């Protein structure tokens, strides 16, 4: 996080805001709600309070503006600059200006008003842009489902450094942006996809292309906005050029690079008993056409051609794969299976039916 130069801050904790006008692209009530929720992002983690006022000057004046709106920072039409705000102070200080020409929405289409206003309010309160790609104060727009939004730890640390901690009995904490070379990095799930490897963690995915040395970090929502964060299991069906992604008792299919229509579907369609509530990990063996699902200390085997579970399952993981413990994530590549348990990775040879290597979880990232 970065403070605005000169460390400007409000001298009071009880601030006021006013909404000067509205965009015709959203219902008034939805604009009010987006701004109210954006303010609560900051009031939830500090002693700050925001009271709405009408017909008089407020600390934070929020308005939709068009091109040159007499503040020496003209907007540039659709896309590009979405909004801007001014650091704490009298007059224009603290004010938020939103580019009227953007496609404002309350969901993943166009630009989500809640996310953008929450970011601008960080400036209104004295924060500058953060270089943490997962931070709300990162300058580039990225969509997160408002219902899943949690203020990242980087932003919490920044705003509390200015205004102090929250008055709540339990201090709020937020997600931390994964770093590829963090030796403590663990994964929710892993899959291959057209020669690349995708490591899922929270709302992020680390993407490793065999021809590139660096690892790319992206939000899952950047490519698949309708997918939830926290994908628990994933595998590639190379023959059908699709990947299946699991969370709780549902699964999605990504065909090529797009989510197939009609998903999510219940995992029970695959033949799991109702006692199974979630899948921990999965991999598919391209040479046998068999897919392995790992749940707690057991596993199921699915025949991709017959489209049904094989008989005689579940079986105990330890009896067929050895001492790999609970499986967080797994993927199959070039005839070997890679099992991930915490920060440990096991290389398993399914032909010899034995573990042939043990590495760190981050061994794929050229650290």
């Amino acid at each position, binding site marked *: 996080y970065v403070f605005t130069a000169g460390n400007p801050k409000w001298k009071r904790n009880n601030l006021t805001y006013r909404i000067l006008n509205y965009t015709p692209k959203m219902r008034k009530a939805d604009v009010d709600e987006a701004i109210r929720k954006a303010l609560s992002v900051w009031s939830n983690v500090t002693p700050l309070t925001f009271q709405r006022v009408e017909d008089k000057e407020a600390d934070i004046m929020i308005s939709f503006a068009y091109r040159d709106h007499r503040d020496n920072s003209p907007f540039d039409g659709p896309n590009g600059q979405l909004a*801007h705000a001014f650091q704490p102070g009298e007059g224009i200080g603290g004010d938020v200006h939103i580019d009227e020409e953007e496609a404002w929405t309350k969901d993943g289409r166009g630009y989500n008003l809640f996310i953008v206003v929450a970011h601008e309010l960080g*400036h209104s309160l004295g924060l500058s842009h953060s270089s943490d790609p997962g931070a709300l104060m990162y300058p580039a727009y990225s969509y997160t489902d408002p219902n899943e939004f949690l203020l990242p730890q980087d932003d919490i640390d920044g705003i509390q450094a200015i205004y102090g901690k929250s008055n709540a009995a339990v201090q709020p904490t937020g997600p931390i942006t994964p770093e590829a070379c963090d030796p403590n990095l663990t994964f929710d799930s892993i899959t291959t996809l057209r020669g690349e490897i995708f490591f899922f963690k929270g709302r992020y995915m680390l993407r490793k292309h065999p021809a590139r040395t660096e690892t790319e970090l992206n939000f899952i929502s950047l490519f698949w906005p309708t997918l939830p964060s926290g994908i628990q299991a994933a595998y590639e069906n190379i023959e059908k050029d699709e990947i299946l992604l699991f969370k709780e008792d549902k699964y999605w299919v990504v065909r090529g690079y797009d989510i197939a229509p009609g998903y999510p579907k219940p995992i029970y369609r695959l033949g799991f008993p109702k006692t199974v509530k979630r899948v921990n990990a999965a991999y598919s063996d391209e040479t046998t056409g068999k897919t392995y699902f790992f749940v707690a200390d057991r596993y199921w085997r699915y025949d991709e051609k017959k489209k049904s579970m094989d008989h005689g399952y579940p079986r105990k993981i330890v009896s067929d794969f050895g001492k790999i413990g609970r499986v967080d994530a797994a993927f199959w590549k070039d005839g070997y299976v890679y099992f991930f348990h915490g920060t440990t990775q096991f290389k398993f040879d399914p032909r010899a039916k034995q573990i042939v290597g043990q590495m760190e979880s981050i061994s794929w990232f050229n650290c």
Partner: protein
Amino acid sequence: VSSTFPVAPETEDEGKTPQLVESYLQNFYDLQRGSHPHLRSHGENRLVAKLKEMQSFFGLQVTGKPDADTLEMMKKPRCGVPDIGQ
């Protein structure tokens, strides 16, 4: 394999690149307008220095050149507040 999917980026319009780079650095990295950014001062021209600053901020490879990753970042919708300076 396209490294940015699901939609491959549009065909690059080479002609616009210098203008995109210069206005991005003027808007967000305090590159002085009209200050002949391509003239050398202190051994490195200001535009290259500002470009490196922007690449460093975004965790991109610091090449001082408007490479594909840098241009991709410059085209992303974003906040209008500068990343450095006022």
